[in-house]
């Protein structure tokens, strides 16, 4: 993309093509001989990482779309069946869902790198603005993708975000109707979001081509912010940048794989495993983490229209960055003040993200307002002011000179940022959750950790408890009898599963006479529901239908709080759901504590939010007979049935962890090979 190339293929057939379409010359001049600055650091590999992620999202997305049904009644189920029944469907879904987070993580690093090293300055303004457009398209794509599984958070996220547009005077309501295709978020909304979610990534790919084109015209910026002057300042793209990017991507893949195989639900919301219900709002609507800083800005402004304007300007303001920051020196490496403010800005963004996830009350609102002001002040006051008053350090004459004079680290700046972040954090944590709800105790589960496996005996006993107790009220819609014989499950043989199925009466039909009839279950049948429909279930249970249990251990969670949730990432703690279910089953108390009354028709449970649960105490000692000599106690029942329900929520968990281990071994070896190859290639360039 940098002008005509004199590249000539040696093969006559390729020469024939090249004379008519000089595509190999284009690739050769753009990605082989293209000169890149010699001093690029690893922050520059995020461009390649982002291209890789875009390709990954499109590839996994296209395959997922082959199995997905965009209909309000079927979408949730089709996603669940995709995960359970499609070959490696769980892997595809995890790659796509975690991939979105990784894509945003990489784009934030990429943007902050541009901010720090002044990559938006003359002559790269258009390059930067194209980047902001890509980011906006990514946000729209990510939002619409999150709606597709049609869980509670999908539905209510869509409701809240589409309602933002109703704040626009005069045309707001019509715009919202156009987005909905109806009178509220519903099936037409899901259909058009699916269509756009499929379209936008290709638009992104198009703008990425423009972005790379603009990059190759202006040339890459570099950590020292001086333009390459001679051949000594650059190295050819291939093999130098290619191999370095390859190593960067390999390291990034390690992080990505950690999420895919070990923490697939860490960044998601448990509520999204509950099917969308237009009649019930989740108590706490939170967008995906990558939107949180902007959500915090939206909520800090008490006026609706002003909040929406504030949120969008927080992104649009980036387009004006090249003119807001008029400093001649590009790289913050040589700008002592800009460097400090940059790290404070990073801390402000992270804290805004933290606040975006908190309930909008008390100190959080005030902190949100202060930080919103800080966010805008960085662009509107700090940067314009700095370009006038700051005295930058002298920049090196050339890149090769800069490499020779290599020294000085950003330790001091990082310290400033940490202190700023720490101080603000302490400020926001002051409110010290007074209500202090009792948290479920952390149990020991056989399936936790990187090598966790289901305890077969526990699964089989849990199935017995489900069949004899829970199944009187709770359905198990996503589990078929054949699953009982699946690898990584309770370990029954196909014949045992068939015999188990035959005990059930399944409604089938209509037959030739047009009548419905009952027949014995087959392995392909799903566990039948105890009630004909949701209304019947609700009517028989005091007005509230007992939830389906297939996904219950993934659909329930509790706050682990800061800083515990950070440690959880490293210890692979994922067992909030099982802990909660186990605790609920054991949390019933005959008599509520002094001064607490629960409404009629509900029961006191110390772990249930609000403590008044509609379900009566389901288990008592000795209720289910165990054949294998395990203690017939409520604690044991609860443990077994929770283990069973963890399996029903994720039947391929063992496969996920096993494949994860293999992938990690491969990636670590691959990353080392890339590293040593890179060292060899760069040996005489440093």
């Amino acid at each position, binding site marked *: 993309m940098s002008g005509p190339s004199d590249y000539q293929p040696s093969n006559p057939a390729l020469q024939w093509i090249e004379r008519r379409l000089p595509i190999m010359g284009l690739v050769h001049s753009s990605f082989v001989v293209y000169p890149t600055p010699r001093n690029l650091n690893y922050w520059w590999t995020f461009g390649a990482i982002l291209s890789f992620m875009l390709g990954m999202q499109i590839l996994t997305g296209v395959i997922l779309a082959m199995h997905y049904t965009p209909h309000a009644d079927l979408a949730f189920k089709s996603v669940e069946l995709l995960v359970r029944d499609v070959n490696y469907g769980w892997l595809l879904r995890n790659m796509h869902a975690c991939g979105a987070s990784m894509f945003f993580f990489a784009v934030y690093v990429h943007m902050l790198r541009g901010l720090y090293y002044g990559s938006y300055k003359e002559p790269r303004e258009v390059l930067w603005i194209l980047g902001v457009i890509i980011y906006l398209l990514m946000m729209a794509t990510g939002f619409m993708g999150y709606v597709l599984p049609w869980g509670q958070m999908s539905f*209510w996220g869509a*409701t*809240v975000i*589409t*309602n*933002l547009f109703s704040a626009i005077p005069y045309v707001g309501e019509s715009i919202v*109707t*156009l987005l*909905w*295709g*109806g*009178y*509220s*978020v*519903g099936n*037409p909304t899901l259909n*058009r979001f699916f269509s756009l979610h499929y379209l936008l990534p290709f638009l992104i790919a198009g703008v990425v081509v423009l972005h790379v084109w603009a990059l190759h015209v202006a040339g890459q910026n570099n950590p020292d912010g001086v333009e390459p002057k001679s051949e000594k300042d650059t190295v050819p793209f291939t093999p130098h940048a290619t191999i370095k990017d390859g190593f960067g991507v390999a390291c990034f893949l390690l992080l990505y794989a950690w999420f895919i195989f070990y923490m697939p639900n860490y960044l998601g919301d448990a509520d999204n495993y509950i099917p969308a219900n*237009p*009649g*019930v*709002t989740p*108590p*706490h*609507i939170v967008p995906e983490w990558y939107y949180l800083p902007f959500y915090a800005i939206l*909520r800090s402004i*008490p*006026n*609706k229209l002003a909040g929406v304007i504030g949120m969008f300007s927080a992104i649009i303001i980036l387009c004006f960055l090249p003119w807001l920051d008029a400093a001649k020196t590009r790289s913050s490496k040589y700008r002592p003040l800009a460097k400090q403010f940059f790290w404070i800005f990073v801390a402000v963004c992270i804290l805004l993200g933290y606040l975006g996830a908190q309930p*909008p*009350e008390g100190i959080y609102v005030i902190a949100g307002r202060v930080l919103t002001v800080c966010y805008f002040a960085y662009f509107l006051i700090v940067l314009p002011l700095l370009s006038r008053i700051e005295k930058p350090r002298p920049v090196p004459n050339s890149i090769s000179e800069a490499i020779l004079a290599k020294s000085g680290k950003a330790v001091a700046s990082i310290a400033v940022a940490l202190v700023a972040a720490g101080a603000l954090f302490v400020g926001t944590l002051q409110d010290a959750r007074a209500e202090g709800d009792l948290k479920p105790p952390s149990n020991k589960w056989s399936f936790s950790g990187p090598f966790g496996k289901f305890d077969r005996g526990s699964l089989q006993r849990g199935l017995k408890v489900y069949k004899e107790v829970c199944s009187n009220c709770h359905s198990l819609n996503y589990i078929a009898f054949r699953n009982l014989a699946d690898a990584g499950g309770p370990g029954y043989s196909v014949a045992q599963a068939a015999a188990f199925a035959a005990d059930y009466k399944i409604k089938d039909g209509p037959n030739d006479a047009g009548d419905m009839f009952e027949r014995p279950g087959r392995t392909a049948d799903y566990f039948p529901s105890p009630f004909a429909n949701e209304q019947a279930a609700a009517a028989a249970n005091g007005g509230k239908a007992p939830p389906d249990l297939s996904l219950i251990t993934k659909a329930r969670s509790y706050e682990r709080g800061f800083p515990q949730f950070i440690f959880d990432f490293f210890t692979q703690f994922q067992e909030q759901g099982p802990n909660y279910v186990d605790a609920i089953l054991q949390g019933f108390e005959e008599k509520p504590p002094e001064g607490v009354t629960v409404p009629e028709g509900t029961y006191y449970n110390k772990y249930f939010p609000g403590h008044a649960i509609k379900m009566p105490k389901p288990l008592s000692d000795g209720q289910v007979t165990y054949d294998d000599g395990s203690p017939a106690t409520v604690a044991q029942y609860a443990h077994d049935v929770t283990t069973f329900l963890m399996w029903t929520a994720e039947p391929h968990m063992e496969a996920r962890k096993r494949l994860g281990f293999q992938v990690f071994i491969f990636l670590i070896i691959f990353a080392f090979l890339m590293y040593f190859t890179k060292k060899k290639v760069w040996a005489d360039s440093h």
Partner: protein
Amino acid sequence: MNPDASTIAAGAPIEVDLSPVAEGQDIKVFWRGKPIYISHRTKKQIDEARAVPVASLPDPQSDEARVKSGHDQWLVVIGICTHLGCIPIAHEGNYDGFFCPCHGSQYDSSGRIRQGPAPANLAVPPYTFVSDTKIQIG
């Protein structure tokens, strides 16, 4: 991309029988995919709603203007928070009305915004009394 014919047809008016709703109770019906709260208000709730000076409200509107005269005990509102579209919970909050769990907006027993970020009162859908115990919404 505007609503298609079947969506519009499904949004036709509906009739709701009010006779089973006792005083102090409320029901939630769906119309055009939106929850509609129909409250049978108590004397206390009506008095509270009428005692407030209208000018002091964030979105000034009298209780009389929000109900049908002669049927003052019936409050019919769209149960969608005017802030960002969540569903407020009936019989909660400090004003004997509705409380939105998302961002903490509170509405009184006339569905008027009293506290929180919502800019406007809960909307009153178009409806008429077909008879004393039956309304048509839409």
